């Protein structure tokens, strides 16, 4: 039960990361690798501010803003300086590694005895309180944490869905769908991409900030492979919801993130060496990308051979 609640909570936090990847990769069609750096940036900033006595809420908000700035820098590099988008993201991600070390002053910060955004909610129940649901017993604190995170993530999801129905949000979607068209309709595509990347990376940094507060430490290495993680969630989400509707895709990203986290938890429990996790994740994403194509090719070959046979 602890395992289940833990994975659900992690999945819901990382759904924010998936939203960020959804915005850059799918909506803007921009392969943004800043993510690996900005999730660690969010974690570093939040942790550093909290240990220096900032209120956890302010620390989390500032972390998100910092992520937004990192995304905007990638956007400016890619659109104003015309650097290849992948490279722009890699440059910022690399630079952020040093920035994160500077921000924290060392390679990790423990937050075990610090007040976090989750502390007031956890304080509603005693440390040893248990809640029984039918056959299962769970720690009340964990359950409260989960509920809070779920509500927060859903609030972000709803806000995003509504945002993409505004004039600005719709223009942003169009900028990722047909650049020539939206430019001819008077939208500065460079600015729109920059704004979108800022939004995307602020969500990623928010995920990082919540993640460190939930798991109780920040580490400069925490961002490695996170973009693939987010992408995996988005892909799973897409296969679950099927459709181009943004609201559905956002909902799908939540489901994808939670499902992926559960799969990982099960795999780890089943004996997967944690060191192999990134390899397995990469293979998983590779499979998800290649399989539909292979299936389609097999299908068309079958149809062809059947046509040939009937002739």
């Amino acid at each position, binding site marked *: 039960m602890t395992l289940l609640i833990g994975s659900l909570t992690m999945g819901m936090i990382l759904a924010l990361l998936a939203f960020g990847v959804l915005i850059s990769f799918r909506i803007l069609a921009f392969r943004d690798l800043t993510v690996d750096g900005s999730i660690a940036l969010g974690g570093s900033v939040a942790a550093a501010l909290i240990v220096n006595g900032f209120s956890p809420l302010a620390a989390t908000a500032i972390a998100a803003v910092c992520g937004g700035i990192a995304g905007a820098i990638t956007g400016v590099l890619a659109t104003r300086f015309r650097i290849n988008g992948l490279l722009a993201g890699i440059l910022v991600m690399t630079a952020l590694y040093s920035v994160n070390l500077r921000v924290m002053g060392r390679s990790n910060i423990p937050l075990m005895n610090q007040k976090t955004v989750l502390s007031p909610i956890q304080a509603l129940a005693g440390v040893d309180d248990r809640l029984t649901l039918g056959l299962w017993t769970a720690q009340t604190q964990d359950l409260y944490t989960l509920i809070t995170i779920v509500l927060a993530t859903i609030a972000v999801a709803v806000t995003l869905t509504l945002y993409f129905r505004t*004039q600005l949000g719709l223009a942003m979607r169009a900028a990722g769908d047909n650049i020539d068209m939206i430019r*001819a*309709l008077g939208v500065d595509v460079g600015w729109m991409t920059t704004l979108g990347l800022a939004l995307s990376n602020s969500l990623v940094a928010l995920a990082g900030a919540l993640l460190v507060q939930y798991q109780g430490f920040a580490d400069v290495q925490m961002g490695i492979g996170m973009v693939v993680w987010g992408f995996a969630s988005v892909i799973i989400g897409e296969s679950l919801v099927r459709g181009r509707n943004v609201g559905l895709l956002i909902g799908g990203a939540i489901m994808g993130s939670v499902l992926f986290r559960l799969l990982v938890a099960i795999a780890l429990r089943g004996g997967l060496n944690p060191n192999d996790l990134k390899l397995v994740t990469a293979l998983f994403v590779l499979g998800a990308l290649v399989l539909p194509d292979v299936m389609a090719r097999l299908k068309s070959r079958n149809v062809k051979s059947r046509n040939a046979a009937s002739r």
Partner: protein
Amino acid sequence: MLTLTDISKTFYAGTPNEVRALQGVNLKIEQGSFVVVIGTNGSGKSTLLNAVAGAFFVDEGRIELADHDVTRWPEHRRAVHIGRVFQNPFTGTAPNLSIAENLALAERRGQFRGLGWALKRRSIDELREKVKEMGLGMEDRLNNPIGSLSGGQRQSLTLLMAGLRRPDLLLLDEHTAALDPKSADQVIRLTENMIAKNKLTTMMVTHSMQQAASLGDRLIMMVRGQIMFDFQGPAKARLTPESILHKFEEVRRLERLDKPAAEQLRRVYV
């Protein structure tokens, strides 16, 4: 309305691939005029349209549009004044967005885009009326993604979108060239109606001699980055597809001669 003063553009300057696409073009288009632009391949007719739209900056010269000097305005800024339809029917619409969403985007061409709802019920009803007027039966499919429509339908919608917020200048770049004959006819009919109804100032590039003869009140023919012929008023009205083809023949004969001789002949004949 639109004044081009001595505009020039050279692509790949200083390389073996140098193309002098526009060589000192002067053109003044009056409010409400419908100008058809023709020319051989590589004559600079599409380049001329793109120069006006702002796809690139001209090397020399001035572009004035609706009382503004727009020479250094980027493309998206000029869009405040310009509605465009492209040759490729897929260029003018966003395939993954619905018909209604595409129209809503066009409704705010060149305007500030804030956090107001993109689609309001009232505006959807208005848009549906406009789609219905086109008579293509798409008014009940406003929520379908545009990608599910045919090229002709998409081009008709692009045309509607270009004129949705009345543009000071409408640019049509061979907008029927990629369509099947039936769709092309349909789009041309819609084009004529829209321009006549809203008295739009228009520049239309075309390859079709038929269209060049029957549409518009002025015809210019581009040759080697310059305006070679300019027919207005009665002279334009007298043109037939045959007589335009004849002009092309004339140009071909001129091009065989060396430059000074061609210049002299031009002075005599034009």
